[in-house]
């Protein structure tokens, strides 16, 4: 009981101090508020940018891609069989690829589907082809796909500019073109286009859709048809695919998972990190910037509180002396001043959470019409809010503790005698 009363008394004194210097208290609260709201805003914005960047990248890049890689360099194949005394000379060596693409893909699709982290698998038959309209001839890539699975992996339907995506499924002569490709061919929706493969197989298609990802490399080269039509053009069986594209629950785990899958799948299993290292690096760098900037702001806020608490201690030094003379010990004094800074931290923190959310919403509505963006990107992860509050409290705690410690060491004789 005595313990409790004691702390109530200390808290009461702390409140008296805070409310008697309302201006300083407000400044201290504001510095915490500012620090925390900036932390929230910076992290929300940066992960929003990362999210957008990743979404854009993952519109052409799956988390994991499985394909038949070209064999390694075998130009000196004979050196392995002959000793050093034999001179070999091979001219004009050629690589003969007996198999292309993935045979018996069902087996590997099954393996992927059995892997718990894998969320969706899309089989593809990709062919290098020429698109022709009259005398215009442009080379590009024909993607034989299943529209639903392709959309599940790449959200291709979201980038549809005109026409219908799912119709691919029902029309063997339907083709969806990239916008740039269609423009270069001077073609519009419902026009006809001729596609011919390197082997000379030619087929007429009707344009049933046009996509726009804003990535020129995609829009200028890609076209989509039903997967069975693509197999037909290559004269391959119904289990033939060139690529298996898979998305997993946490894309950061792709590299690890790719390594595991490599053991059971005899083809190249490539994670997005391997395929596009820059994206990974950019994401990480942005996160580092966000954390560095917001922690710096919190640190500055901490200095502000430290300063104000120091001033308070100096201002109240006679009170501290008399409290000590009356029998308050060092622990009580620390409690009194630490309570003040923690109160400041909590109030500033709560306001900071609201303000941070407010700023985020505001920035989220700033128009930003570049690429596929409408507004500036923003995320609202509750973890950012929890961490911001946590860091804010830690900062105020440390910033308050140092002056409190100083206050607790005040020698009442020095102060009272003057």
């Amino acid at each position, binding site marked *: 009981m005595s313990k409790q009363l004691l702390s109530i008394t200390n808290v009461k004194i702390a409140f*008296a101090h805070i409310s008697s210097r309302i201006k300083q208290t407000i400044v201290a609260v504001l510095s915490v508020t500012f620090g925390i709201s900036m932390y929230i805003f910076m992290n929300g914005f940066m992960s929003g940018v990362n999210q957008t960047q990743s979404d854009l990248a993952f519109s052409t890049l799956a988390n994991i891609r499985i394909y038949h890689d070209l064999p390694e360099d075998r130009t000196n194949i004979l050196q392995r069989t002959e000793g050093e005394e034999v001179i070999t000379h091979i001219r004009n060596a050629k690589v003969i690829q007996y198999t292309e693409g993935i045979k018996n893909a069902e087996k590997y699709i099954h393996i992927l589907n059995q892997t718990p982290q894998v969320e969706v698998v899309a089989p593809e038959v990709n062919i290098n082809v020429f698109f022709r309209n009259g005398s215009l001839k442009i080379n590009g890539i024909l993607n034989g796909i299943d529209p639903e699975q392709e959309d599940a992996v790449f959200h291709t339907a979201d980038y549809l500019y005109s026409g219908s995506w799912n119709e691919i499924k029902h029309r063997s002569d339907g083709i969806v073109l990239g916008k740039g490709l269609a423009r270069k061919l001077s073609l519009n929706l419902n026009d006809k286009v001729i596609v011919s493969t390197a082997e000379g197989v030619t087929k007429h298609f009707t344009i049933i859709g046009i996509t726009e990802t804003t990535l020129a490399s995609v829009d200028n080269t890609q076209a989509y048809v039903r997967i069975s039509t693509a197999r037909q053009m290559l004269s391959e069986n119904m289990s033939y695919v060139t690529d298996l594209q898979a998305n997993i629950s946490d894309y950061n785990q792709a590299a690890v998972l790719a390594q595991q899958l490599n053991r059971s799948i005899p083809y190249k299993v490539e994670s997005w990190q391997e395929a596009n290292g820059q994206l990974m690096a950019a994401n990480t760098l942005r996160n580092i910037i966000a954390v560095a900037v917001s922690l710096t702001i919190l640190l500055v806020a901490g200095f502000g509180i430290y300063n104000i608490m120091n001033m308070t201690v100096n201002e109240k030094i*006679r009170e501290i002396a008399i409290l000590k003379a009356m029998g308050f010990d060092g622990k009580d004094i620390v409690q009194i001043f630490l309570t003040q800074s923690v109160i400041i931290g909590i109030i500033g923190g709560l306001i900071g959470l609201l303000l941070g959310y407010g700023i985020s919403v505001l920035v989220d509505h700033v128009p930003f019409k570049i690429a596929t963006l409408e507004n500036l990107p923003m995320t609202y992860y509750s973890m950012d809010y929890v961490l911001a509050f946590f860091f804010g409290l830690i900062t105020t705690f440390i910033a308050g503790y140092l002056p409190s410690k100083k206050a607790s060491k005040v020698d009442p004789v020095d102060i009272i005698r003057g």
Partner: protein
Amino acid sequence: MSELALSAKNISKYFYVPQTFQVLKEISFDVKKGEFLSLIGKSGSGKSTLLYILSTLDTDYEGELIINNNNLRGKSQNQLAKFRNAHIGFVFQFHYLLPEFTALDNVMLPALKLGIKSKEEIEAKAYESLELLGLKDQAMKHTNRLSGGQQQRVAISRALINDPTIIMGDEPTGNLDSKNTSIVFDIFHQLAKERGQTVIAVTHDDDFANNSDRVLELHDGRLLSDKYREQK
């Protein structure tokens, strides 16, 4: 009334800055319970220094100090804080009240710190203490709204709240006019006579000193005289 409230044995103290200087030279004396004692001496005689040693605030001395049969030599700061809280009441030249608090809150503080009684009991006791000093009607006022004399009396009420064995005063009437001085003096006298509380006060005021039970005079850090007033 013959029990000892305080016993000082061979107390010496040195100042080291700017140069080593012995302020107090082997001072020994005993104080009985219920005694009203004045410490006098010229400025620089060491009387305030002695008071701060007696009040346990200053621990940097040689010799022995026993209050209420407790030897206070070598106790930690926190132990001494606890001891002061329970056994010693302070009245300084300046009142040192907490300006954000009411008179009542100020008086209650040391008892809340001691934490033996319930809040209600402490409040009743604080009212009683304020009443003793004629301030009951000022209890709910903030202390910065009180006059100098009233503030000093609130400070005395605060010193009394835990029924301390000894009340220490450092020029307790130094800032007061003659009317308030005599009020404060009468209260000290009453406390010593009726409650058996010991009062030790450093003073410049000759009238104050001459009317107390016992006067100790310090000169250059030595006890010059130790006079008892004749009981009338």
